[in-house]
């Protein structure tokens, strides 16, 4: 291959779309590294603090699409203080200054200010796609800047962000000349939108394939929109409330029938269940259904709807569906690959709307293609997990969350070690695992022994001693992310194999048994790790005692040393 001209190499590399493949290829030799770096257009950075904008631009000057992830995963559950970091501004600023031809920006758990969005909108004339997941820091003013300035915008996808509503008319900021939208998702916005502007926008964007509305878009507006866009593949309804005897509802039914391309459905943020039959005609072709934000749909109505969805591959739902409902899913949805069952009752209720191990076993028996699971349940048993492991050996993602984090096997009162052990032993391709319930070191022995492909592991309130964590660190060769909370793992485990952490993206440990002294030792030994201690509240002593337990520690490999934007309460050792 040494004698091939660079253009040929480049052409061959064009076929490599996965960043992992490209990373591998660039390690072969200097000339491959060089060809690869000039031809790479899509860059994925799993931890924004592992590198910096300057290095990105220096190595990949032709980057057109950037994916960045910021805060650690546990930030989703309020375990990371608000101003920890993860700002996108420096990245946008650096790329703007260097004349990067940015077309796509995908951010997860980052802080995005309105200034960032304005700079983004004005700096990159070919900008096409903005995807923000679980981000914060911006308002509808920032969205207005994007709408006004990005002349070729194809995708504006806002998923589960905390956005301040400024009562502006951001939707109206899309100029009349904007006809390029393919995907628009503003379901997470809390405020009103200009419905007339929305209808006009939809009417002129003939390539629109994906549209997800927020709760402020009423049903009659939905009807008018669908009439303009029968070519939609993906629809998120806003509010689905109306009088089912009205003319508007009747018109809606007819409009929906004409939308023969819809394969993905979500929304129903406010719903009158008597209006649901309007969507039955499109259920037969649905491959993806997300009703996890529709607490207003009772189990019986959910079941009626799901009975029509025989081609479903992905289902996100609330536990209001019950075990019985899951039984219906199991007998109807034979193509199911991904199931997420979320808890509906988060505010100290009676807890009668939960699912148990029964529902999960039924699903595993009925849906042999299942490979991805997120399951919040009232209780679980080892026997059930063992059966699930036998029925579904293809799990890639298995996340089980018992609502009581240390609940034992509901029948035998034993820890759930054997059940999870069966899962890791049977599912040889398992990449992501979250465990919960009463668990001893034994479960980690099994994980270390069998979970050879495991890349991400989440642990809470589990284990007895350092041995548990050691089993995992020693056994899981492909581990990239380990996050642990409220478990008795301490210094011995932390320091046993310091080199391991350079093979991983990050380690989070909170409310465990590690001390300052151990963290300092680790930081000293491993200069290419940032060991961050997050100190909230009272403890702002200049140098705490080495024997003091650390409340929150987050460490990650990095090429660029301690970050300069860390707030007061974050110490990089």
């Amino acid at each position, binding site marked *: 291959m040494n004698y091939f001209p660079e253009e040929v190499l480049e052409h061959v590399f064009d076929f490599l779309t996965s960043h992992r493949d490209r990373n591998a290829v660039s390690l072969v030799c200097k000339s491959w590294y060089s060809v690869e770096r000039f031809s790479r257009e899509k860059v994925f950075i799993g931890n924004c603090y592992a590198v910096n904008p300057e290095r990105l631009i220096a190595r990949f000057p032709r980057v057109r699409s950037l994916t960045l992830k910021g805060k650690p995963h546990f930030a989703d559950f309020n375990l990371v203080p608000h101003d920890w970091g993860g700002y996108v501004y420096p990245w946008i600023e650096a790329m703007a200054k260097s004349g990067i031809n940015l077309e796509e920006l995908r951010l997860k758990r980052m802080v995005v200010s309105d200034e960032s969005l304005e700079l983004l909108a004005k700096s990159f004339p070919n900008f096409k796609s903005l995807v923000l997941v679980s981000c914060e820091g911006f308002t509808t003013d920032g969205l207005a800047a994007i709408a006004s300035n990005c002349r070729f915008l194809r995708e504006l996808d806002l998923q589960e962000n905390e956005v301040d509503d400024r009562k502006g008319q951001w939707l109206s900021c899309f100029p009349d000349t904007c006809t390029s939208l393919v995907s628009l998702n503003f379901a997470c916005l809390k405020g009103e939108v200009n419905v007339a502007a929305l209808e006009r926008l939809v009417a002129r964007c003939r390539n629109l394939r994906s549209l997800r509305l927020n709760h402020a878009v009423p049903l009659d507006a939905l009807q008018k929109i669908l009439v303009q866009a029968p070519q939609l593949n993906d629809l998120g309804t806003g509010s689905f409330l109306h009088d089912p005897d009205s003319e508007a509802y009747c018109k809606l039914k007819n409009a929906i029938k004409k939308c023969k391309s819809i394969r993905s459905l979500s929304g129903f943020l406010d719903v009158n269940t008597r209006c649901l039959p309007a969507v039955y005609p499109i259920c037969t072709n649905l491959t993806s259904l997300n009703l996890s934000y529709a607490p207003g749909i009772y189990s019986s109505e959910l079941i009626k709807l799901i009975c029509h969805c025989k081609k479903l591959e992905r289902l996100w739902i609330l536990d209001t569906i019950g075990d019985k409902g899951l039984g219906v899913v199991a007998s109807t949805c034979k193509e199911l690959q991904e199931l997420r069952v979320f808890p509906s009752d988060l505010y100290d209720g009676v807890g009668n709307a939960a699912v148990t191990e029964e529902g999960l076993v039924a699903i595993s028996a009925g849906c042999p293609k299942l490979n991805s699971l997120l399951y919040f349940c009232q209780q679980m048993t080892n026997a059930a997990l*063992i059966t699930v492991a036998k029925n579904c050996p293809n799990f890639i993602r298995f996340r089980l969350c018992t609502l009581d984090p240390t609940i034992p096997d509901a029948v035998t009162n034993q820890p759930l070690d054997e059940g999870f052990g069966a899962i890791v032993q049977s599912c040889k391709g398992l990449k992501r695992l979250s465990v919960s319930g009463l668990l001893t070191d034994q479960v980690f022995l099994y994980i270390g022994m069998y979970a050879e492909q495991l890349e991400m592991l989440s642990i809470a309130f589990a284990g007895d001693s350092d041995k548990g964590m050691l089993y995992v660190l020693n056994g899981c060769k492909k581990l990239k992310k380990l996050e642990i909370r409220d478990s008795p793992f301490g210094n011995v485990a932390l320091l046993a194999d310091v080199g391991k952490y350079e093979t991983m993206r990050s380690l989070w440990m909170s409310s465990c048994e590690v001390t300052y002294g151990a963290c300092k030792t680790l930081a000293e030994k491993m200069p290419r790790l940032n060991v961050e201690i997050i100190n909230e509240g009272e403890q702002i002593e200049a140098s705490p005692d080495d024997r003091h337990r650390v409340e929150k520690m987050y460490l990650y490999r990095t090429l660029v040393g301690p970050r300069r934007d860390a707030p007061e309460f974050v110490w990089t050792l």
Partner: protein
Amino acid sequence: MSPEKGNDLPESEYSGCLKTELTLGLPGGLETPKSGSKRGFSETVDLRLGSSCEDEVSVSTPPPSKAQVVGWPPVRSYRKNMMKNCKYVKVAVDGAPYLRKVDLEIYTSYQELLAALEEMFTCLTICNVVNERKIMDTSNGTEYVPTYEDRDGDWMLVGDVPWKMFVESCKRMRLMKSSEAVGLGPKASSKGLSIS
């Protein structure tokens, strides 16, 4: 789940082979959890709750409600905030052309709720006749009975179940004219009756 259920599963089907395989681990075999060394969930909850709840929680009592442990269950705040809104229920009054919405979360008893309804629909007053809660439109003497639709779609009399259970299961309310509220009773007897 009754403990007996475990006996229904044949031993050989699941535990036999697995046990043999999985004991190829470290010497010593299975260890029972040592509650002393483990930083258990209930201990953690003690730490988190602070002085106001010290009296209520001890290691031996069952874990307190889910809401009190930071970050558990692990659900994004965005999702939590979306689910909060479902405590709002619509209140309709037979004969009135408008609906009102009440947030059941802000009341702690039926009395408070009815008082709020009284304020909302100003032509009505509560009259407690013996053990029944009735609402009367004093201008024309029509009596209303507060009813609600529960999670299963059944219409029930307000007041039959403990307050918290009511808040949990109530989807919407309707102040029904007494004359129409025939046949409504405790859940057991109202199954199968539908209000058209």
